[in-house]
């Protein structure tokens, strides 16, 4: 897919299964919305094909596809009330009035908006508008429902509720959901399959657990959860060397002496007294996070993020142990060296970038 000669999507090869909840996950500008719009029929790819039940639908306009969309910020019709919004597609299809009324009532029940049929759109809260948008799409009984960041405009608590709600609806209706989000937590908690995208390419496809536990490269490791990513060398199967030490690990199948990226999740690291540790470092900052502390530890000038329930004060010398199953080895990629160093880490910085993401979308 290209816009003005600029390549937006490259080598996208995706299969969607029936009844699947699939999420396209990636930072803004990664091409996930473009992918969704191609599936919806609002964009025609400059090359490549979109197949639906084995038939190419490149030239099928959106109004003839058995696909419906829940748009960013809902795109409800302001001149119609709740009932007429939901009935819109059925009216266009010229279904009998009785059937329309029955199906709309049904959908109102599914999304929990009984009694709201004659409310005006402007009088609904964000969450209610969201439900109307979902009902408006689902009432047409599409084979696939596309959801473009449907929860982005909701506040945190409402977002959690709607996540559960969406999952419930998807399971109840048995429809394929293709869900676009930049929120990794949302993706992990709702999806059957997660597709991590960046720079118009698919970085990894897999079940949420696999994506989290076995990230394919530094980008995925960093984007999904927090990761300390270090340069290492794979000496042989199950032996990796970094920070001048050889560690046991569970990974095999790399070339001897291959340079690799080593991922260590912050929550997998255990503190031990300085003398007993594989590595010894100094605590440079401590942030209380509720469930745990985020502790930044300086190991020979390389700063690690460690999440722990034990408190260690700033300036304290600590030791850590790494178990073989806590160490994950990845091949080097174009993302190597870009992520995984917490030298400039701060809680505020993280929030700021997240806000910026929201605004862009």
């Amino acid at each position, binding site marked *: 897919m290209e816009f003005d000669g600029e390549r937006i999507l490259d080598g996208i090869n995706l299969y969607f299964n029936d009844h699947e909840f699939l999420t396209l996950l990636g930072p803004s500008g990664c091409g996930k919305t473009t992918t969704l719009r191609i599936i*919806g029929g*609002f964009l025609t790819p400059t090359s490549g094909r979109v197949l639906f039940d084995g038939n190419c639908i490149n030239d099928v*306009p*959106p*109004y003839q596809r058995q*696909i*419906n*969309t829940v*748009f*960013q*910020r809902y*795109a*409800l*019709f*302001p*001149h*119609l*009330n709740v009932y007429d919004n939901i009935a*819109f*597609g059925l009216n*266009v*299809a010229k279904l009998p009035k009785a059937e329309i009324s029955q199906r709309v009532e049904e959908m109102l029940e599914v999304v929990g908006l009984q009694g709201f049929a*004659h*409310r*005006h759109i*402007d*009088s609904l809260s964000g969450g209610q508008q969201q439900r109307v948008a979902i009902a*408006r*799409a689902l009432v*047409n009984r599409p084979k696939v429902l596309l959801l473009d960041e449907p929860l982005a405009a909701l506040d945190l608590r409402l977002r959690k509720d709607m996540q559960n709600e969406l999952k419930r609806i998807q399971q109840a209706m048995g429809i394929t959901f293709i869900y676009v989000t930049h929120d990794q937590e949302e993706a992990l908690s709702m999806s059957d399959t997660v597709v991590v995208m960046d720079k118009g390419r698919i970085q990894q496809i897999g079940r949420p657990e696999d994506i989290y536990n076995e990230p394919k490269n530094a980008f995925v490791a960093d984007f999904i959860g927090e990761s300390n990513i270090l340069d290492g060398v794979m000496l042989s199967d199950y032996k990796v060397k970094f920070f001048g030490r050889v560690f046991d690990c569970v990974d095999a199948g790399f070339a001897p002496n291959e340079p690799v990226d080593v991922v260590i999740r912050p929550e997998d690291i255990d503190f031990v007294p300085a003398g007993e540790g594989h590595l010894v470092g100094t605590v440079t900052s401590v942030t209380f996070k509720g469930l745990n502390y985020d502790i930044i530890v300086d190991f020979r000038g390389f700063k690690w993020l460690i999440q722990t329930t034990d408190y260690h004060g700033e300036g304290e010398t600590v030791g850590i142990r790494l178990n073989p199953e806590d160490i994950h080895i990845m091949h080097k990629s174009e993302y190597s060296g870009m992520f995984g160093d917490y030298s400039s880490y701060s809680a505020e910085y993280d929030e700021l970038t997240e806000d910026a993401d929201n605004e862009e979308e």
Partner: protein
Amino acid sequence: MRKTNRIFSVLIFIFLYIPMAVLILASFNTGKNIAIFEGFTFDQYKELFRDRDLLALLGNSLLIAILSTAIATAFGTFAAVGIHSLKPRMRKAVMTLTNIPMTNPDIVTGISLSLLFVFIGTGMLGQKQSLNFWTLLIAHITFNLPYVILNVMPKLQQMNPALQDAAMDLGCTPVKAFFKVTLHEIMPGMVAGAIMAFTMSLDDFVISYFVTGTEFVTLPVKIYSFTKKPIHPKIYAMFTLLFLLIFVLMVTMNLLQLRGDKRKQDRRIKMASRGMRVFRRAIAIICTVALICGSAFLIIRSRKDKITLNVMNWGQNIADGSDGTIDLIAAFEEAYPYIDVNYSEYASNEELYSKLSNGGLVVDLIIPSDYMIARMISEDMLLPLDFGNIPNYKNVMDTYKDQAYDPENQYSVPYTWGTVGIIYNAKYVDEADVTGWDLLWNEKYKGQILMFDNSRDAFGIAQYKLGYSVNTTDKEELQACADALSAQRPLVQQYVMDQVYAKMEEENAWIAPYYAGDAMMMMENNENLRFYLPENESFNLFIDAMCIPYCCQEKAAAELFIDFMCNPEISGANMDYICYGSPIEGATEYMDEYLAESEVIYPPAEILERGESYGFLPEDITRYVENLFLQVRLN
């Protein structure tokens, strides 16, 4: 500060609405004088609704306004959607281009449209009458379009572009999505644009004036030709109604907008507004009905198999049935049932001249004044008359035949005539001084003398005084006239035209040369005023005469009309309304005695014999005289 602001806004409101208040008051006034409110009455409204011509004109204006608004709103909306889909830089450029016609002076738009229509109609399609209802409609649509686009664009920009996608996602084709969703979103802009276009169209004069033919005239164009006589108060009544119509339209629009905004803010209101929906439907229905009626009306119009005779006359220069007179057009149509008279008006000889020379019109009969007839003859704009078709020509008195402007009387038949004499106030002016044009040069009345503020009449008086021909082209004679006028200048209080009425009636000046018919009216208002024609000198006898212009299509019918007007009974009835002299033998017998016996309007024959009418002057002489007069005025 706030107080000052409030005072200012009140002042501005007064400033804006006082003229309308005066007009509304005048429309309920029993008296005809605007300055004094004599009593409350609905008579003007009754008279307005009795005047079917005026109502027909109002109907024309409304028809054009509604049709052009409906079409411009439809086209403008589609155009706006098209412009909106362009890339931003292109969009900006196109918007600038669409806005230019709005800032363009109307007169430029009017003239260029007129040129275009005549070029295409007459030049390319060979139509005789290329300016007509359709050109007027096209012109109105043209100048209405930018207002619609300007109002619809912001609504398109405000609209969430995903709405269109959502509609398509739910099964609408792009066109259906436009009608089911986009249209609703931009409706407020369309309504605002339509109302603006409607009001612009309803009151447009300048552009309409240049692009309309004689068969279809709108109200503003017609009213402009009412300037020859004071405006009838029923016109005030009509303006009041028009003002109220537009006022109600604007207020409704603003209220609906206000309600729409409030609905968006107020989340508690649950039901969709029905008012807006009803309003939209009403507008849609009105537009449709107007379109259907308009087309039907035009088809009926174009189907009639009668001859149409296009007559162009001065404003209020034919008896029309008001004030107890006879409706002469109706009488003519009754006498010749196969002829339909299409009557239109002009305000000055020069206006008539420019309309005819611009081309694109079919006009069968005109009634210009003497010097203009001479000019038109010299420019081959008139056709020689077939006097075999005008037997009543024998009724025209010899005094008015073979005048300087048409020496062999081939092109014109006199319609009315009048004289230029001196009006004076007997209370201040010594009767012994009242002899000839000398009175205007009498040192005794220094500062109480008024003089014509137009070169032809001013020089005419000097020429009569010095005994030269009023049509002289001798530059030495003209210089002598200029010297005489310069000599008179210190005695003159002011050079005037219409202001003469107030000055003389209120006795702020004592002596003035003016036209006999007007003198008669001044004398009605001040009993000290007298009118006389110089005893031994010559004076101007002006004549308006019926002529057939080169663009005539129905010459025989036009000659029938001329013949009809030469009937003494008809001419007499006509003069009762227009208060000029009739050139027809025996016409006085059919007039009001008051007019027939007035020596102001009908001086004795021996005096009349000294009258001389204006003839043709070459253009270089006209300009020479104008320059001399300018010098006189400036010294």
